[in-house]
């Protein structure tokens, strides 16, 4: 499989060698929802620059608007005011340059693993079906599931499903990968494996990643930056740069140290708001 990358046979190799990523700019973005006739602001004046190939984690308590922001970047919803730019182009709708991975795997049960990974690829022009199949197989290999290429989704464990979802999001070769608590439902051991593999894949595929989580240690383990959100209205309160060497292990004591600093900061912001957890 690795030979796929090295040997140069045509479009597939070219496709796999290209590692596009985007600069993301979130410019004065606010989002207001109306509920029971009452307006309330979920995101308030968010300003954010994310560099090409940067791995950014958003942390914050439930309901502070993390998923909402991700949906806006994905183009599944549009901001009430403000604009989001990818590589300088404003976002109006979903696009192949930005793939989203959800908390629930959202895999299609009527397709097998290969079919799921092929779904987005089939919508990508300039490749024929045989080439798409090769590309899909490469990503299935990348997430370590080549033995399950033709398995049904219900036959896979939760961790394997998220791996398929990751392969499915990576396959169309997006510039930006949006991940909404993708590992929230998994056990600790499975998660640790995924942290390691996700870091490796990120280094290999050089995507810009925006990763949402509740878990501060997870954020510190994965992110170049950790952005602290707090609710009512949702705002970015602090921006931590994480300078630990890669690949990071979540059990590393240095990592715990950084996490406790961020946890303390979060508590402070919540206390200031009078929100008891």
């Amino acid at each position, binding site marked *: 499989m690795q030979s796929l990358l090295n040997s140069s046979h045509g479009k597939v190799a070219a496709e796999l060698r290209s590692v596009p990523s985007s600069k993301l700019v979130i410019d004065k973005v606010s989002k207001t929802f109306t509920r029971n006739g009452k307006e309330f602001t979920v995101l308030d004046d968010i300003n954010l620059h994310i560099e090409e190939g940067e791995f950014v984690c958003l942390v914050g308590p439930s309901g502070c608007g993390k998923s909402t922001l991700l949906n806006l970047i994905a183009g599944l919803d549009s901001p009430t005011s403000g604009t989001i730019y990818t590589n300088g182009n404003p976002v109006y709708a979903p*696009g192949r340059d930005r793939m989203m991975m959800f908390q629930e795997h959202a895999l*299609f049960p*009527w397709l097998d693993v290969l079919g799921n990974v092929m779904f987005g690829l089939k*919508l990508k022009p300039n490749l024929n079906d045989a080439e798409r199949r090769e590309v899909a197989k490469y990503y299935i290999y990348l997430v370590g599931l080549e033995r399950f290429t033709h398995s049904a989704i219900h036959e896979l464990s939760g961790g394997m499903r998220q791996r398929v979802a990751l392969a499915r999001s990576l396959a169309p070769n997006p510039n930006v990968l949006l991940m909404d608590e993708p590992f929230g439902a998994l056990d600790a051991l499975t998660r640790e494996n995924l942290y390691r593999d996700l870091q490796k894949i990120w280094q290999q595929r050089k995507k810009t990643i925006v990763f949402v989580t509740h878990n501060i240690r997870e954020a510190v383990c994965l992110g170049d930056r950790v952005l602290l959100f707090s609710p009512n209205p949702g705002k970015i309160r602090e921006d931590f740069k994480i300078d630990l060497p890669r690949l990071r292990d979540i059990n590393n004591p240095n990592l715990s140290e950084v996490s406790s600093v961020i946890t303390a900061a979060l508590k402070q912001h919540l206390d200031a708001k009078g929100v008891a957890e």
Partner: protein
Amino acid sequence: MKKTLIRILLSALGFCAIIALWQLAFHLVDNRTKLPSPFSVFEYIKESILSGVLLSAIKGTLMRMFSGYAMGLLFGIPLGVLCARIRIFRDTLGMLALGLQALPSVCWAIPAILWFGTNNSAMIFVVLMGSVWSLLLSTQHGVMNISPIYIRAARTMGSKGLHTWIYVIMPAAFPSIVGGMKQGWAFAWRSLMAAEIVVALPVSKANGLGLQLNYGNDNNDIAQVIGIMIVIVAIGLLVDKILFSPWEKMLRKRWGLDAK
């Protein structure tokens, strides 16, 4: 392999036991006009196959069944999609479907005769009425209950419009539609049998299993009646195995055991 063989053997043994009980009952009742012997029923079935009567009856019945059911699919599924999509259709046609599904569709035999006469069209219409509402409702239900996350995932991957309908919504609704197909078939099959008994009587040209049941009654031939009933059951089982089992197997393989 060995397991299936044992299963088939046991099942055959069970059927032999049932036939033996029947034979016993035949001796106890000892009234040939009320309870035929297994042998005389077997004789009837054999003779009616050899004379071609049974096959032509089965052909007639299945022809009606398939025509009516095909029309049911043709109308039911698109209308179900329409009801799922557009509220006003759901509140009118969808409501109507809910009501009419509860109506035993043999009731349609009476207006059908009035509208089409005592002919094939009337019976095909009964089959259509038997199947179309289940198909419509199951499609509506299936489409409306698919998890929105599938559509969102598809949208992020660049699917929209017709592509989403064909490659996401319909496949996601498929388990529910298969359920409706099965139910529609069962309803239609029951009402066709009833309709054939009611309608087919005066129409000598429209051979069918219902007509043969009537003849059995006219001839006072209980062996014929029971024989035809056995054939009706056998066809029901066979259709289930041939028409629906493959779909269900596929669903179980893909969706897992929780497929509905």
